[in-house]
């Protein structure tokens, strides 16, 4: 209750402005207000900021890996056995691996792959899942709904990791197939999510209004309903980046993901784990790298959640 006070006050404040300003400036100030408001909600938790900062840094290091990394050649098919298995030093901040390749460099490039992987996977599976969900939800109880959701159920019937693994194991191991497998295993979760929102929204007034005013289905789906699903979807997407990276790492850990000499964080840990604890840096730093990027996206995702989710206490 106490919180209805600031809320209502806000609404009124905005209207206040409306009365004074001209429509264009009103609009502007309104969006500006909106953004500031969102940003406040996002930034209220300092961790979200940390997450955002981390993400920016990681993305930067991934994009400019070839410029910022101390030994770019280490990313490719490169051997320098004279420098092999050096412990961390000024020359090699994170040491070198058994082939004399700079671990730090390989981490930077590794980010390139894992981020790319995550982005691609999500941009494949999310839209597919969302659209299917929208359609199924909108035509609830029709045969379309049945078909789509039954198929979805089949895919949801096993934990995604297992499914992804099963698929990977039959394909020839490669980063591409890993991505494929993860996408196949994950789209249904989006479908189900969107499906539930949509089917509940379907009865809502504004949807019916749109229907009455004779808006065509695509308009209703993408203009009326979709925006209302975006909050949970965006949150899930931002969190999923982390998960996809995790699963990717797990796949390559068992040798079903990216193949050498691609610098993949997961396989770096896997290979190096054989040489623990003597060559600890070979396993520890990539492991940290994985944790760092996942952490970043979790924090960020939570921030997005605070931002888009409805006001909760504190």
């Amino acid at each position, binding site marked *: *209750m*106490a919180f*209805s*006070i*600031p809320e*209502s*006050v806000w609404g*009124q*404040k905005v*209207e*206040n402005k409306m009365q004074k300003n001209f429509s264009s400036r009103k609009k502007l100030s309104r969006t500006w207000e909106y953004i500031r408001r969102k940003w*406040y*909600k996002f930034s*209220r938790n300092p961790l979200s900021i940390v997450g955002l900062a981390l993400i920016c840094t990681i993305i930067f290091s991934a994009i400019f890996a070839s410029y910022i990394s101390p030994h770019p050649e280490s990313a490719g098919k490169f051997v320098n056995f004279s420098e092999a298995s050096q412990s961390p030093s000024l020359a090699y901040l994170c040491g070198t691996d058994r082939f004399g390749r700079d671990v730090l460099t390989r981490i930077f490039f590794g980010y390139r792959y894992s981020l790319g992987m995550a982005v691609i996977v999500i941009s494949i599976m999310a839209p597919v899942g969302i659209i299917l969900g929208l359609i199924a939800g909108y035509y609830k109880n029709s045969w379309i709904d049945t078909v789509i959701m039954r198929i979805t159920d089949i895919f949801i019937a096993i934990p995604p990791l297992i499914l992804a693994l099963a698929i990977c194991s039959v394909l020839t191991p490669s980063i591409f197939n890993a991505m494929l497998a993860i996408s196949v295993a994950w789209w249904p979760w989006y479908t189900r999510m969107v499906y539930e929102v949509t089917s509940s929204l379907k009865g809502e007034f504004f949807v019916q209004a749109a229907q009455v005013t004779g808006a065509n289905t695509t308009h209703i789906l993408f203009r009326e309903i979709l925006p209302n699903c975006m909050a949970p979807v965006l949150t899930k997407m931002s969190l999923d980046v982390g998960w996809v990276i995790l699963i990717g790492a797990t796949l390559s850990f068992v040798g079903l993901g990216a193949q050498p000499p691609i610098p993949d964080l997961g396989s770096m840990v896997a290979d190096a784990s054989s040489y623990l604890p003597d060559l600890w840096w070979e396993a520890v730093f990539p492991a940290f790298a994985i944790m760092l990027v996942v952490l970043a996206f979790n924090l960020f995702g939570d921030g997005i959640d605070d931002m888009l989710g409805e006001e909760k*206490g*504190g």
Partner: protein
Amino acid sequence: MMLMPLLEIKDLHVWFRVFKGFLKVLEGVNFVVWPGERVGLVGEMGCGKTTTMKAVMRILPMPPAIIPEGEILFKGKDILKMGRGELQEIRRKKISMIFQDPTAALNPVFKIGTQLRDTVRFARGSKRSITKGDIRTRTMQVLKEVSLPDPERILENYPIQLSGGMRQRICISMALISTNELLIADEPGTSLDVTIKDQIRRLLGGLVEKLGTSVILVSHALGAVRNMTVRVYVMYAGSMVEVAKTKALFANALHPYSQGLLAAIPRLAGGGVGEGIPGHIPEYINPPTGCRFHPRCKHTMPICRNKKPPFFKVEEGHQVACFLFQNRE
């Protein structure tokens, strides 16, 4: 003869921490209830009524709420400074509150019975001193008092299985369990449709008559207060603007805002703001200086802008916080 007020709120301030600083929601609320007295508290939505009452029960969520200054004296003791034991004592035996929205006020995942029984148990002190039988009889009794049909079944029900009216009645019964000195009724029945609302109000009226306890009836509708209270406080934007005997107020409301309220009675019901008073409740983040009402006031004077008007006594028991009346004393 000097008689001590049952409840006295002195210069109460409540702020809420939000982005961009604080919402200064209550700004020096003064409020008195005499034993056995029935007081009304009237004001627009969001003028701080509920906040004040929650402050009395000490159930404001803190943080974000903070109470920078002020005291709430119950029989001369400051509730804000009470230890847990005393406080519980007050909550269990002295004061109780009926919440605005019965649906939100009932725990959705427990049976009505469970919730009632626990209330009874603790209202009657520690677990040992009361037997299952007593609890049962007492529960039944209160349910009868709020004239709910078939209590047996209701006790076995979950809130969502009941209609809004029934829920409201449950809330009232819970309040009754732990009242014998002061009952705070926060806009009972607002969320219900008109007929039910009337029933509830009548029920409440009857009960109050029967119990003879003191009552604070909070409402945004003057009409509701009219026939159930002897004295009325008019609240605006976090402070009292006028207090008078109910009749007196209705006869001649002095504060421009009160007049506005009276003028707007029919349209006010259901919240929001009618044309009765142009404009809106100000934002609490940086509220208007001086009298918070001046932006909306017809007869704004320079002084209103920079000085917060204190209460001016117009006649016995009728005070107004408006500079129009400073020389009437």
